């Protein structure tokens, strides 16, 4: 429960960063923080008290005490997707800098929703 | 020659890492090792004949022991300085001259110096090494220079040159 709350605080910090920061790279950092929190939460979900890693070896072949492998697979996917989106956002910010000579949202606002 | 040598090293690395010796593991490792060896071998070992000189390996072993001893000594020295309430430091950057001719020898010397606490290689130009030293007594500079380099230099010469 403490862990869930702390993870959620991490998530909320990321959300706060995305919504209030006015610098493109900070916004990206906020998204990265949200991703981190998400990954952590998914893994917390699959944890079992005194579980072992879901890999069958000579020392541990009792699958009944293993932690849930599905969230781990999901997070593996989510991590790579996160990397892809982050890299894409960075590429965009590079081009935006080339056009405006700044990354500050206050100065590059041409468009208004 | 160098390709074979690198492949061999890589294969040994593979076996040690994999930790079992069933045939297929060895074969897969071998194929991978040969592949990387062909890709990279020519660039790594310029004078591969040196690697077959058994005396060099012997000196390397001795160097290892000296090196570990120096590291342990120096680590306790730094630990003392960390824990001492007054932080007895008088740092600075000085240059030292090495006798080594080969690039690999110099690189290993620089690494050894960096690994020994209290000294940190900042730059290397031909045979000059610029070293950040944690405790310098300005009146004993030449002694210090000698001390930093000489303890590793004589072994590295025998290994690499």
């Amino acid at each position: 429960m403490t862990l869930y709350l702390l993870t959620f605080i991490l998530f909320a910090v990321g959300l706060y960063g995305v919504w209030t920061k006015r610098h493109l790279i900070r916004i990206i950092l906020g998204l990265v923080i949200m991703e981190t929190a998400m990954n952590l939460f998914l893994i917390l979900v699959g944890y079992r008290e005194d579980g072992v890693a879901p890999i069958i070896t000579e020392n541990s072949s009792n699958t009944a005490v293993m932690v849930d492998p599905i969230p781990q697979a999901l997070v593996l996917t989510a991590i790579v997707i996160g990397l892809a989106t982050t890299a894409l956002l960075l590429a965009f910010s590079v081009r935006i800098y080339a056009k405006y000579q700044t990354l500050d949202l206050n100065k590059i606002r041409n468009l208004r929703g | 020659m160098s390709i074979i040598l690198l492949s061999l090293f890589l294969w040994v690395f593979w076996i040690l890492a994999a930790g079992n010796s069933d045939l297929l593991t060895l074969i897969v490792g071998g194929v991978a090792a040969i592949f990387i060896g062909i890709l990279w071998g020519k660039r790594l070992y310029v004078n591969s004949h040196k690697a077959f000189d058994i005396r060099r390996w012997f000196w390397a072993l001795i160097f290892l022991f000296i090196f570990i001893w120096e590291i342990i000594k120096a680590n306790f020295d730094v630990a003392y300085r960390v824990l001492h309430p007054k932080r007895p430091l008088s740092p600075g950057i000085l240059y030292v001259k090495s006798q080594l001719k080969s690039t690999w020898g110099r690189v290993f010397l620089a690494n050894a110096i960096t690994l020994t606490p209290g000294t940190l290689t900042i730059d290397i130009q031909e045979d000059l090494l610029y070293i950040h030293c944690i405790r310098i007594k300005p009146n004993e500079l030449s002694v210090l220079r000698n001390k930093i380099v000489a303890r590793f230099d004589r072994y590295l010469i025998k290994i690499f040159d």
Partner: protein
Amino acid sequence: MNPLVIILILMILGAILALESKDLLSGIIAMGIMGFGLTLAFLFLRAPDLALVQIIIETMTLILFIATVKITSNQETSERSISHRLLPRIAGAVFILFLTLSFYRVAEELPKFGEAVIRMAAPILAYGAAATGSANLVTAVILDFRALDTLGEATVLFTAALGILIVLRHEGEKR
């Protein structure tokens, strides 16, 4: 205290530093530290696969961020008065507090930490290794039971690489 709690606090502090530090690179480095915290947490939660992937992906992300900062600049240009800086922070703190309180009831209702609900995973744990031949059950899941996700994920990476090639191309836009 549970070491995980300490690590999580470290991560939260890292996140705050990442958002509020003076210059960008410090923020990026703080993000790296947060990633390290995540890696350690994965280690504690018995997810070795993820710890392995996370640490190297973290390094890659760090490098990409540094490359971006190198191309653009390290300075945050907008100078603003203290009240301008302080107000969003207070608002943010209130916002986070509010969200957390709203989540509190939910967190109470969820099953306790450490009691996984094993439903979909039960057959996988029971005979997944025998059915797929993979001793690493995570690999069994990502490449056999849920292989479609992996195909999709590889496609995402492919799409992103394509996009980066398009966005960062050196040719002109129009012919």
